[in-house]
């Protein structure tokens, strides 16, 4: 087992890793920017090293500084948390070259999953369903017709070199296909300098469902169930829960087995999350994999009672899944609210000094936060104030507990999105489990003038 671990991150996830290390009797080293001098992860680590000025690129993303800190502190391993360097294959390689264990997948797998097209191709080859599409550029109108009949309608035509919502056209009827194809090509040429377009089935009323996995370095992989993450605002997750109200046991079982099989084939190890979009007809399509621990991991921890971060450390130290994880069962329902330092209606960021901070407790309540009364939320990093997680015997109890917890969570001095979460939980469609990835954008659009 490692003697000493450096946490290459900040905020609540750094604290999370520190507590896992403490439980395993591992000494800890924190790194921090000048803006985080008074941060809790600096206080609670056994050692702390300042690695740069406030800007992430000069500090938390600065590989030479992080590695140099790891060397002078003589650590055995680095845990990268999420964000920052956690999916930087180059960083993982530098760690290896410096004889420091990177707590995560291998550089090759990080790279594979980081290149989204390649990830889709590999996972498709390994047996996962992917969104039906043209598999590359569609060269001409004849090809467009052929692809359309294969993948069915409705479909999207997208620019190969594109992004930002431009060079995209929706096609609902056969009649629209060729005119849309031509317009999309013209638009793509003008916007991106290349008329190349590809085609993809349009997923209607999509739901974002992801599977948590753990793999060891001896070839075993397990699935710890799914999380529903459809409540997103501008593609940022706001609320997550497990299990998903959209999955029946048979589908859960089937997809779980497919995921495990695919990841065994590619030799995946450590923690990861496999993301799917669920179509209105119930079909699930692989979209991407995140080769790291995720923000919403507590949802799975509350349901399975598996400590995912400790498992990561143990797996990286060479333990097999039987020891690192052991057996577990999924019980009850968990919901996580991401509370951000933003105005709850306009979403304008609200950094600054917190003047009052009272965290809720009681049965089934977990709060992951790095903030406290008198702390200053710096403007340089993400706006996450706290992750509030509620677990109950069933979804109704989880929702009821979350209501109470949100009411009991007092944060003053900055604006937070607590009122937004209260609103979400009171929405009939949310309570009924009827929503998709557009739900929250619709809910918030009206207020956000």
């Amino acid at each position, binding site marked *: 087992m490692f003697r000493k671990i450096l946490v290459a991150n900040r905020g609540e996830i750094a604290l999370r890793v520190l507590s896992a290390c403490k439980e395993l009797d591992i000494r800890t*080293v924190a790194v921090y920017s*000048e803006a985080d001098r008074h941060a809790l992860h600096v206080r609670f680590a056994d*050692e*702390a090293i300042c690695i740069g000025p406030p800007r992430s690129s000069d500090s938390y993303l600065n590989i030479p500084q992080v590695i140099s800190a790891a060397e002078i502190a003589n650590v055995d391993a680095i845990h990268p948390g999420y964000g920052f360097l956690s999916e930087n294959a180059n960083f993982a390689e530098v760690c290896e070259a410096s004889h420091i264990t990177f707590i995560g997948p291998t550089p090759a797998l990080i790279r594979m999953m980081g290149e989204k097209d390649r990830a889709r191709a590999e996972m498709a080859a390994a047996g996962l369903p992917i969104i039906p599409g043209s598999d590359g550029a569609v060269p001409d109108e004849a090809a467009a017709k052929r692809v359309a009949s294969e993948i069915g309608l409705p479909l999207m035509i997208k620019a190969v070199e594109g992004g930002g919502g431009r060079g995209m056209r929706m096609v609902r009827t056969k009649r629209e296909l060729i005119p849309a194809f031509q317009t999309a090509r013209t638009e793509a040429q003008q916007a991106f300098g290349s008329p190349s377009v590809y085609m993809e089935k349009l997923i209607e009323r999509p739901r974002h469902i992801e599977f948590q996995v753990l793999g060891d370095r001896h070839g075993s992989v397990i699935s710890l169930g799914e999380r529903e993450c459809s409540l997103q605002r501008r593609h940022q997750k706001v609320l997550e829960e497990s299990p998903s109200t959209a999955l029946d046991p048979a589908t859960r079982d089937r997809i779980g087995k497919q995921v495990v099989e695919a990841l065994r084939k590619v030799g995946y190890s450590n923690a990861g999350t496999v993301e799917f979009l669920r179509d209105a007809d119930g079909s699930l399509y692989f979209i991407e994999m995140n080769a790291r621990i995720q923000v919403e991991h507590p949802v799975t921890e509350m349901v399975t009672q598996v400590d995912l971060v400790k498992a990561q450390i143990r797996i990286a130290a060479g333990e097999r899944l039987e020891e690192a994880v052991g057996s577990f069962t999924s019980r009850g329902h968990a919901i996580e609210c991401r509370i951000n330092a933003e105005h709850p209606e306009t979403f304008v960021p609200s950094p600054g000094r917190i003047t009052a901070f009272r965290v809720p407790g009681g049965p089934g309540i977990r709060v992951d936060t790095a903030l406290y009364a008198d702390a200053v939320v710096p403007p340089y990093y993400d706006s996450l104030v706290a992750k509030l997680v509620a677990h109950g015997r069933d979804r109704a109890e989880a929702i009821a507990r979350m209501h109470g917890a949100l009411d009991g969570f007092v944060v003053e001095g900055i604006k937070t999105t607590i009122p937004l979460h209260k609103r979400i939980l009171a929405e009939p469609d949310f309570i009924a489990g009827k929503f998709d990835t557009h739900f929250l954008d619709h809910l918030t659009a009206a207020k956000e003038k």
Partner: protein
Amino acid sequence: MAKKSTTKPAGGAEVGGVDLAEVERLLAFMEKHGLEEFEYARGGVHIRLKKPSAAAAVGPRMATTWDTSPPAHAAISDAPRTPSHGNAAPSPAKAADVHVIKSPIVGTYYASPSPNADAFVAVGAKVESGQVLCIIEAMKLMNEIESDVAGEVVQIFVENGKPVEYGEPLFGIRVREKK
């Protein structure tokens, strides 16, 4: 360039207004009485003498627990480093014309270009802007740290071979007045 004048014995070498012969006497005094550290102020002069720490094999002097008790391994002369102050060491000279050179990187501080060579500078050395003051080794690369001012080295805050973090004070340089 005119030397600064203070009251001093004729012929004596001098650093910052203090007669070096006097400093040597103080060092002998410390040796005789087994002192690790000696500090006094007289008139406008403030002297602090510190023997190299006996506990040379200590780990990095890093910020640790929030309570201000010093880490067990710290040498007596290391002020307890608490996160709110960011770094230990003798407090950097507060005189208005003393410029503190801080480490721009994390690494290991070396006073000389190689193990057996002389140190780049010592207290009292006159340095020019751009002159190499020390090396900080990071990831097997030797980074030369240059002075960004011209003047005289009045304080060296770190010990050879010790780890340093970003922003750690390295040298105090009394900036030469421009004529």
